[in-house]
Every structure is written in C-alpha cells, then in structure tokens.
C-alpha cells in the first residue's frame, strides 16, 4: 500500500487527529489524561451502540430502535437491582431482553420483508411506549441494597485508573472486530450488504444472518443501557432519545456506506470518538448552545464530504 492509499483509507483518523490538535491549541484543559479518559468514558455508550449499528448498516439495513431498547433495558435492569437481584442474573436478563427486542425487529425485516427503516421505526415507537408503561413515566432508582453499589461500579468504577465503561467498550470492540474480519459470519454480513441476491444464490441463509445482526444490535444497546443506568444509579424513561442518530453518525463518519457492504468497524470507533471529542470540546470552550448545533453539523459535514471525495477519486 502506498502513502496515498494509506491517507485515503484513514481519512476519519486524520480528521480526529486534526480536530484534537485544533482543540488542544485553543484550550489547555483539553489534552490532559483526566479529560481524555473522561471523553473515552462518555464515548463508550455511543461507541457500543454504533458497533451494533455497523453490523446492521453493513447489511444495508438501519436500526432506529436502539435508543428505545437502551431505555427499556435500563429500566428493567434498574428495577431488578432495586429488588436485590444478584448482579449477574440482572445483567444477563437485561442483555437477553435487548437481544430479544432486536430479534423482533430483525424477524420483521428478515422474514416479513419489511424495510428496515419502517420495521425499526415501529420498534422504536412501540418500545418507547413499553418504557413509559413500565416506568409509569418516572425515573427508577437502583435502590439501597449492596448490589446497587457493585452495579454502580459498572458505570462509575475504575480498573487501574481506566474507567470500567471504557474497558467494556474495548472488549466489545475486539469481539466485534474479530467476528466481522475473521469469521464466516462476518463475511456473510459483508456479502449480504454487497449484493443480497448473489449472497442468497451462493447459499447464505440471508434471513438468519439478518436476524442475528439485529439481535446483536439489540444486545449491544442493552449493554449501553446497563452502563448508562449504572452511571446515574437510576433509569430515565426518556433515556436514549435520538441516540440512533449519534450512532448512525458515528458509523457514517467512520466511512461505512449506508448502502451496505463496505466499511470497517475501526472507522466506527473513530467516528464515535470524533463525536465525543466534539461534544467535550464545545463544552470545554464554553461555546454558546445556540452555535453548538451548527458547529457539530459543520464538522460532520466536512468529515463526510472529505471521505466521499477521497473514495470517489479512488474509483
């Protein structure tokens, strides 16, 4: 690979480095170990959701239900912790519920042939309704049992100075990376997004792969919900609203095509970091909230246009 190709392949990474350099020149409080760990911890939730979203988008689908699943999983988990359920039972149940909700959308997409946008839009709406019914519109606190303290560690704890959410996100990333790049399942995911017809003719069980992909997205959303609930020691009925947009933005910023079949999960991680750094920088520089939205939009636009141009010129 020559230097030109290397740059072309890594536009998102250079974008991130450029952004971080610019912010650190402006604010001395940005490039500190403390703040970088802070950014990683804040980014971990979006990064975990975006990893699931990467699988879905690689199959040329989309998952709008991630924020609602996050909220429902968080609420169920919080009420289990408040009822003194053993930690491991609460966590596994929550992950299974997330996977099941994802699989429900996946079934509608894979076996009933409904477009992913519509199927998961319905999922988003109905699951948000479930959250409101389940929580009665009120936050659920994780309570005072001992298990609540160990639960808090998942969101607020550290292992050797590294925040636990960052470690969880890193492990999730390694697993996703391995599955996508080194397993048959991963190759099927790319194949379906590249050309579903051809994949089917080549003997890939397209429906089954899609079902698993949406279930994975649901489980990862539930994992993000666990971390968020642990950090706040309470589950909010409005948690995760519009998180699907941040996750999709991370995937697209990372260079994955919404048309499916093309993209990398490393890019998604970088995309999530760009969004995390941007949020942090705007707060640190005390930019007026009225301008923040414009700034965010502009950076995302710039990154996507740069990536699009470099890909167009490589064809």
């Amino acid at each position, binding site marked *: 690979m020559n230097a030109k190709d290397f740059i072309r392949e890594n536009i998102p990474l250079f974008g991130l480095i450029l952004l971080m350099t610019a912010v650190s020149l402006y*604010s001395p*409080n*940005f490039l*500190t170990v*403390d*703040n970088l760990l*802070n950014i990683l911890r*804040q980014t971990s939730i979006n990064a975990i959701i975006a990893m699931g979203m990467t699988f879905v988008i690689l199959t040329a689908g989309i998952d709008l239900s991630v924020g609602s699943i996050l909220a429902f999983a968080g609420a169920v988990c919080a009420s289990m912790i408040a009822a003194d359920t053993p930690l491991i039972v609460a966590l596994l149940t929550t992950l299974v519920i997330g996977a099941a909700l994802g699989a429900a959308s996946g079934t509608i997409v894979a076996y009933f042939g409904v477009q992913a946008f519509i199927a998961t839009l319905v999922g988003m709406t109905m699951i948000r309704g479930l959250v409101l019914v389940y929580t009665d519109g*009120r*936050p659920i*606190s994780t309570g005072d049992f001992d298990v609540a303290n160990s639960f808090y560690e998942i969101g*607020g704890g550290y292992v050797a100075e590294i925040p636990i959410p960052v470690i969880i996100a890193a492990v999730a990333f390694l697993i996703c990376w391995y599955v996508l790049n080194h397993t048959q399942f991963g190759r099927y995911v790319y194949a379906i997004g590249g050309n579903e017809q051809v994949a089917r003719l080549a003997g890939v069980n397209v429906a089954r792969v899609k079902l698993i992909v949406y279930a994975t997205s649901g489980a990862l959303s539930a994992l993000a919900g666990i971390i*968020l609930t642990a*950090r*706040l*020691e*309470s589950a*909010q009925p*409005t*948690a995760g609203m519009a998180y699907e947009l941040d996750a999709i933005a991370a995937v697209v910023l990372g260079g994955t095509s919404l048309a499916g079949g093309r993209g990398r999960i490393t890019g998604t991680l970088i995309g999530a970091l760009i969004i995390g750094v941007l*949020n*942090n920088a705007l*707060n*640190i*520089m*005390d930019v*007026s*909230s*009225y301008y*923040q939205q414009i700034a965010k939009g502009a950076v995302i636009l710039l990154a996507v246009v740069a990536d699009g141009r470099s890909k167009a010129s490589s064809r």
Partner: protein
Amino acid sequence: MKKLLGLATATAMLLGTTAPSFAADTLALVVSTLNNPFFVTLKEGAEEKAGELGYELLVLDSQNDPAKELAAVEDVLNKDVKLLMINPTDSDAVRSAIRAANRKDVPVVTLDRGASGGDVVSHVASDNIQGGEMAAELVNATFEGAAKVVELQGVPGTSAARDRGEGFNKGIDAVDGLMIVASQAADFDRTKGLNVMENILQAQPEVNVVFAHNDEMALGAIKAIEAAKRDILVIGFDGTDDAVAAVNDGSMLATVAQQAAMIGSLGVETADKILKGEDVADYTPVPLQLIQK
C-alpha cells in the same frame, strides 16, 4: 332547566348557611391530567379556594388527550357554568375548546400552560423569571457575594429555559463578585446533565455552585461532582420527588418549586374578580418556593 336552576339558587339563598351572598355560581375546571400529582395538587388548591369563595367547582379530567379535552369543555358549556378555567393538554390543540367557550360568551382563564389562540381573559402560571432570580439570590446569600457559577440550560429556545436563564443571569450580573464561568445546554436531561457537567469540570478548576434549569439536569450534575470528588453545591428547579429527596439527604442545596396549589387557588381568585367585573391582568404570575433542608 334554567328555571329549575334559578329555583335551586333561590332556595340556596333562602337557606343561607355558610355560602356568602349569591350562592353557588358554578365554575368549571378542565385539567390536562389527574394522573400526575402536580395537577392533583393544583385541583385541590382550586377546590379549596372555590369553597372559601362560595363557588361550585366542576372538575373534569382531559387525560392528556386534546379530543377528550374538547369534549369535556363542550359538556361543561352545556351546564350553565359562569367561567371556564382550563389547564390545556397542549397550547395549540386547546384553541378550538377555547373558541367554543368564546362562542357561548363564557370567560376563559388558562392555568399553568397557555393557549396560542382564542380569547383568554387571564393566564395564571408560575413566574419562571422570578424563579431564576430566586436561585441567584440563594447563590449570593450562600457565598456572600463571591462565587464561580455554572449554569446548565434547558432545551435552547424553550420558554422555560429562556425565562429561568434570564432571571438567573439578571440576578448574578447584579453582584460583582458572582461570575458565571460556564453556561451550557444539557436539554433538561439527566444523562446530558452528567456528561456536560463532567466536561465543564475538566475545564474549570474552580467552581462553587451549579444552577440547573430543572431537577433532572441537577441530579445528573450531582453524579458528575460526586465522581470527581469536588465540593460544589447544586440548585435545581421544579421540586420533583427525586430532587426533594436529594435536598433532604444533603446532596442538593435547594430546588425552586412551583406551587401547584397556589396556581389553582389564584385561578379561582382571578375567576372571582372577572365575575365581579373587576379588572384582571392578562397574566397573573404565581410565586415560586425555595425548598431547602
């Protein structure tokens, strides 16, 4: 029917009892929902004041549904009510209900939430600007005129965020030693309150107090402050159950609470003035209350 009512009124007058002079004019109160403690308290405040002033109060629950709200208003308009007090489910959707009352020449008073159309004689609601000022005064009193302050704003562009921010900034600007070191939006959301506060803490080595435009953001900020082991006081707004609990256990300095009962009782007082032909203001501000330990 009218005759019958007249007869009933006459009888009531003859019987005299506790009701002063003209007994039992009927007021209607249509509430957005009675499934929320805030509005139940509002209703109770109205009922108490109505009893005191000698009105019959007819209460209907819209169950947060504009269609039910319109039906409820149409029903009460057929019952010879003298005045309609309405706490709209939605500022836009309530317009047709208000126009229905206008057609029957029944005066309308809106409570807590305003209406974007129709003829409303007076609007009775909390004074968010004053609430912001109260928070600023508390900051001033607690830190004796010298503090570094962080403001967590609500959803940019909403009236609650605008008014609470305006009052607060006015109060802080009036004192030389008080300085707002960061003012950032966290959209009335607990998670964003946590994240935005964490970021601000990275940038600001010295912060004494946080004012959040609502309790949810305040509770998120408290989590960030606790995790960073910093010593910063937090003031919220609304007086939700979680916030009052936090005030009681000492993790929150105070919350500026709306007085739901007073919105109800001032609504009835305003109605009373209108029916007696007295002048009333377009907007009756309801004072807020500081909940502290």
